[in-house]
């Protein structure tokens, strides 16, 4: 069990990170990453929805008829998102105003559907919830890295606090969505490099020790 949890954490944060390795959720990674605060709230909203929807879908997985499973998944995901939206509007009107339409857009984030379809559908509720949670955390951390670069260069601030001590000219392009493309591309490049090296190394090691198993796993 502990091993499974460790695997889920490692896989979601690094090995199969939703944004960098699976190129999912790119739309929101472009839209909300010009300020760290927006990224954090968006990331937490998504983490909440992914964990709970994965948990619910996994609980119901033996009862959901296979043919309509996507309808059911969308329904469950949408319900949680609408609930988050209502809750924020009732209790945190300022944040709700700052996020505007982004909360509703969590529904269309493919990460949630991806986790539901790829993991929650086949695993027990608890581990599915953890899987959803860490997928969300992996997404949030990538968003925070992107928005750190964009906010620092675009506004000279970090989480709204001014750090532009030397007074450099801020880059307007960093505030615009295209800037996130450059940063995501660099992150994907680094991620792909590290992972390719690692798999190559593992493959070599396996070929030396267990040649048969290696060929079987391909």
């Amino acid at each position, binding site marked *: 069990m502990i091993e499974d949890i460790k695997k889920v954490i490692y896989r979601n944060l690094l090995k199969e990170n939703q944004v960098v390795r699976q190129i999912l959720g790119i739309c929101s990674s472009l839209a909300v990453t010009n300020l760290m605060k927006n990224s954090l709230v968006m990331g937490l909203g998504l983490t909440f929805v992914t964990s709970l929807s994965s948990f619910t879908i996994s609980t119901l997985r033996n009862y959901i008829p296979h043919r309509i499973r996507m309808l059911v998944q969308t329904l469950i995901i949408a319900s949680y998102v609408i609930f988050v939206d209502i809750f924020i509007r009732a209790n945190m009107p300022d944040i709700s105003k700052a996020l505007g339409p982004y909360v509703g857009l969590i529904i269309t984030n493919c990460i949630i559907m991806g986790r539901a379809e790829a993991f929650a559908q086949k695993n027990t509720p608890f581990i599915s919830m953890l899987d959803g949670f860490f997928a969300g955390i992996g997404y949030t951390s990538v968003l925070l890295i992107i928005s750190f670069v964009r906010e620092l260069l675009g506004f000279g601030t970090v989480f709204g606090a001014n750090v532009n001590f030397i007074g450099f000219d801020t880059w307007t392009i960093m*505030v615009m969505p295209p800037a996130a493309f450059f940063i995501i591309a660099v992150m994907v490049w680094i991620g792909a490099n590290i992972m390719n090296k690692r798999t190559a190394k593992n493959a070599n090691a396996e070929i030396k020790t267990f040649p048969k198993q290696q060929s079987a796993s391909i």
Partner: protein
Amino acid sequence: MKKGSLYTILFMFAISVFFTAILASANAFYQPSIEKNELLSNMKSILYVLDIKSISDENQIAEVFNNNVRTKKLNHLDIFVKYDQNGNVQGYAFPFAGAGLWGRINGYIGISADFKTILGVDFTSHSETPGLGGRIDEPWFKEQFRGKKISSEPGIILNNSSSRDEETGIDAITGATSTSRAVVNILNDFINELISKNISSLEVQK
């Protein structure tokens, strides 16, 4: 696990009813506080554009609002009239709306009792880029409108490097010229409409 069509339909039906019921009750439960929040933020906006000292305490907003402002109807439009202690009209707040760069911009504009100057401008909703056009929400931008002269020509204009007009000019937001221009256009259109319809203080008081 093979399941028949009837099961599929019943399952979808049941699960839809279940989740819709949860959402409906959550909505009903939170509706009063959502409405209260919206009402309060509108009141706050109206107080701001009428240049009535801003109050930080949420509980006092409604009280200050009711003491200073009356709501009136003018051509199906809700307008808000500010009175001083002796019951003299000091200004009006009108809701306005128009096209921003990315979407609709809604807000209130406060106008002095003699329809000569702007008391203040505030935006209640917009979908401009956060950090660029979204900075129309920042106080330095909104404060610029206070005391600007109302006229059909040239209306409110954007300052540029060579000319600054204290009476009608405002500074645009760096990197968000289109949004700044859109805001100025919306306000000028609104002011022109007031002028063309000959809406004066007398008509409002009726």
